């Protein structure tokens, strides 16, 4: 995972998705409220928000399934409303649960979508994508016999069939067990690395986004709450940090006398946990060592989940 996320900065300045003040109103209800975001080439962009925040509506507007009530959407630098065919041809998508023609085989489903997408050399393309998602040996099976995980993988396969530059995945791990979620995560990583695809992924499984994404937006009640680099956002402000020490009592005494007492959140037999800003971690470490307390490990405890809850309930 460390290799995969070593470059957590924006990978390119070329904008693939740009939403400017996009809104969607249903009578008196605003599902999306002046949402703005940017996805750059090469990003794995996390799209986060609680249930009903407007994620799926936003994604459907990006794919022209839903017409926005206001604002503008640009894909690959072109206005979606006037360049629908050119832009959609460069995008693969899996929206919510992957539904297929259940009475057709996996291959027949992909043939239909490939023909619509003007895919050349369709047979070998289908074999290639089914191989990638591990469904080659089930290509002649009817989709109604597939498990949820297999349907999700077939959903990924159809999104890749026409060699898109970007794929949009709406809850790709929905309904999968932990093992299935892990396999899906690895598959998405492979696609990003091997095919160099830009990926926008919406999910409510926060560790998934934390492990996959380099940039993200969190939306709530249809509005963008925060957007930026995942690691930078997680390291922003105060966070809980565990210091694993050889003598917990001594460490607590040192912390109490240092004026950091208010930051002491909790402790147990092997560690103390402080609520401090990231910039102060090194300072505290030095202080403990200078007070003859050996520090064997330092572990920031802020997870995306904690960050998400703080942001969306603020």
């Amino acid at each position, binding site marked *: 995972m460390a290799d995969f996320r070593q470059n957590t900065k924006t990978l390119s300045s070329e904008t693939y998705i740009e939403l400017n003040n996009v809104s969607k109103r249903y009578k008196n209800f605003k599902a999306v409220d002046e949402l703005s975001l940017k996805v750059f080439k090469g990003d794995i962009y996390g799209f986060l928000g609680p249930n009903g925040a407007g994620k799926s509506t936003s994604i459907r507007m990006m794919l022209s399934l839903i017409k926005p009530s206001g604002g503008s959407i640009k894909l690959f630098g072109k206005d979606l409303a006037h360049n629908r065919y050119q832009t959609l041809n460069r995008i693969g998508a899996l929206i919510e649960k992957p*539904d297929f023609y259940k009475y057709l085989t996996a291959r027949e489903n992909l043939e*239909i979508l490939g023909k619509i997408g003007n895919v050349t050399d369709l047979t070998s393309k289908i074999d290639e994508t089914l191989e990638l998602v591990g469904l080659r040996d089930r290509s002649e099976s009817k989709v109604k016999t597939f498990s949820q995980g297999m349907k999700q993988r077939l959903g990924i396969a159809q999104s890749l069939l026409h060699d898109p530059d970007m794929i949009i995945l709406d809850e790709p791990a929905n309904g999968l067990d932990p093992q299935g979620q892990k396999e899906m995560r690895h598959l998405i990583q492979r696609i990003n690395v091997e095919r160099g695809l830009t990926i926008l992924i919406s999910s409510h499984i926060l560790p998934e986004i934390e492990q996959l994404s380099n940039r993200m937006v969190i939306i709530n009640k249809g509005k963008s709450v925060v957007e930026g680099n995942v690691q930078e956002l997680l390291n922003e402000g105060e966070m809980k940090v565990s210091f694993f020490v050889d003598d917990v009592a001594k460490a607590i005494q040192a912390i109490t006398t240092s004026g950091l007492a208010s930051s002491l959140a909790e402790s147990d037999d092997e560690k103390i946990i402080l609520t401090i800003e990231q910039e102060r971690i090194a300072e505290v470490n030095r202080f403990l060592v200078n007070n003859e307390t050996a520090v064997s490990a330092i572990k920031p405890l802020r997870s995306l989940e904690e960050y998400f809850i703080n942001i969306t309930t603020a």
Partner: protein
Amino acid sequence: MKSLNTLIRIELFKIFKKGRTYIGFGAIFLIIIAIQAGIHFEGQNLFDFIMQQLDQNFQFEGNVINGYLITYLVLNTLWIHVPILVALVTGDLIAGEANSGTFRLLMTRPISRTKLLIAKFLAGWTYTVLLILFMILIGMGGGLLFFGKGDLMVFKDSINFFSASELPWRFFAAFAYGTLSMTVVAALAFMLSSFAENSIGPIIGTVAIIIGITIISTIGFSLMKPVNPWLFTTYLPGWQSFFEFELDKAKILRSVLVQVAYLVLFLGVTFYHFRKKDILS
């Protein structure tokens, strides 16, 4: 046009891969075979019973129970059922995709909504035509094969006799007219399908509209009398006009025009609505 052809082929592929598509063909086959078997075994007795009164005034010669009579009886029986069978498939064309969630799969591809609708309707229309051709094949083809040719006697206001030589064009015209009527039914089911999220509603809705309006019109409320000439349901049995001794061309033309107007209306509403529709399913 190439991509429209591709879309039509895809839609036909989907229609004919579905089990429900064959319910119509199976039902028509069974009903026609039942009619033909019934006439084979009981037809002469039934005919003799009906003709008891007429025998005193007319002398019947030749093959009275023939393939044309079978076809005419089949038409009379099946024009009640065929709209249901047509709606079964055409009512599912849009709503079925919405219900199964495959619309969002299709619509995220670079595909024109208008072209998709055209392809879907033409595929549904092809199914309708094939259903009617199947009816001709089994009903008329089977009837002529097993019962032979002969003159046709039709009771409609009065007794009309048609010689075997003029019957092919009359049946051809009746089937062509019937195809137009069933196309209107298909368009109605297609329109309802564009408003629905599952296919049960459009199928039942189509049948309910046809039966409901027909019953109200037939009961003959005085309020309905001025409206009846403008209802498409009034003209669904209009194929029988081709079995009147003197063709009422003005009446037939009016029937065709009213039905074409409804066809344009139903398709117009469908296209207008679907092009603006948010794909939420």
